[in-house]
């Protein structure tokens, strides 16, 4: 069974690779490379996979899930300029892919329990663009 909890945060970022020229950054990232940055209302959906505990009927306590997501994601990310204020984005480009992977790394240990594990992180950068991350997997299929 999957259970999903949503949280939101608003943050600014700029997507550019310091090893590329301004012109190349513009070509690769478009408007997202504008040097002073821009922002999004990010929507994060975190899904846990597991079996309900026979005693509580819950896969994971949603109150605790909310606390973990607030502490590990919303507090460090909300109303921040990711590149300047939230490591590792001082040296990792804060694309939605990299943000989703960083969020996975921050929260995964907190959901690893006998009856539950982190299944996926879905990060909406806008309502029209989102990324799903399922943890490290070999690139086979």
């Amino acid at each position, binding site marked *: 069974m999957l259970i999903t909890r949503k949280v939101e945060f608003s943050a600014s970022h700029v*997507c550019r*690779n310091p*090893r*590329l020229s301004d012109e190349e950054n513009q070509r*690769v*990232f*478009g408007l997202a490379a504008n040097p002073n940055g821009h922002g999004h209302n990010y929507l994060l959906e975190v899904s846990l996979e597991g079996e309900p505990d026979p005693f509580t009927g819950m896969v994971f306590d949603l109150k605790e899930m909310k606390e973990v997501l607030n502490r590990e994601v919303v507090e460090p990310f909300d109303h921040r300029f990711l590149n300047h204020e939230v490591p590792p984005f001082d040296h*990792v*480009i*804060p*694309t*939605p*892919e*990299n943000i*989703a*992977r960083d969020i996975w790394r921050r929260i995964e240990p907190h959901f690893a329990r006998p009856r539950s594990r982190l299944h996926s992180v879905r990060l909406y950068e806008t*309502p*029209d*663009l*989102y*990324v*799903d*991350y*399922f943890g*490290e*997997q*070999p*690139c086979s299929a």
Partner: protein
Amino acid sequence: MFRVTRRYQFAASHRLHAPALSDEENRRLYGKCNNPFGHGHNYVLEVSARGPADANTGSAVDPRRLDELVAREVLQPFEHRNLNSDVEAFRDLTPTSENLAVEICRRLKRSWPAAFPGEWPKLEKVRIAETARNIFEMGAHEIQ
């Protein structure tokens, strides 16, 4: 490995009518969707691709390249069109949203290698909502 999904919208009209059936049978099968002059929807299309993040860009899919592909193959030919009359594939095929999903998936899969010449990203699935309540999804692997 990431799955990147982009959402698009287009408005189009269609009529569900199977030429092999009688008018009465068509009315019974398709109900209001068989009304002779057709009707329209605001279709919402989600296109998903999967792949690893590129080391230089941190992106698994270049959304602008995907936008160009979807605009050329789907949005421009379908936007404000009558699917039955204006889209070749539906001259002899009822444009149910199942068939529309197949047609969109086929178009994207056919043009995918030219737009994304490397091994990654791969087209994973398309999902089309005809209305907020009726949603159709198919994997690219279902298309030969």
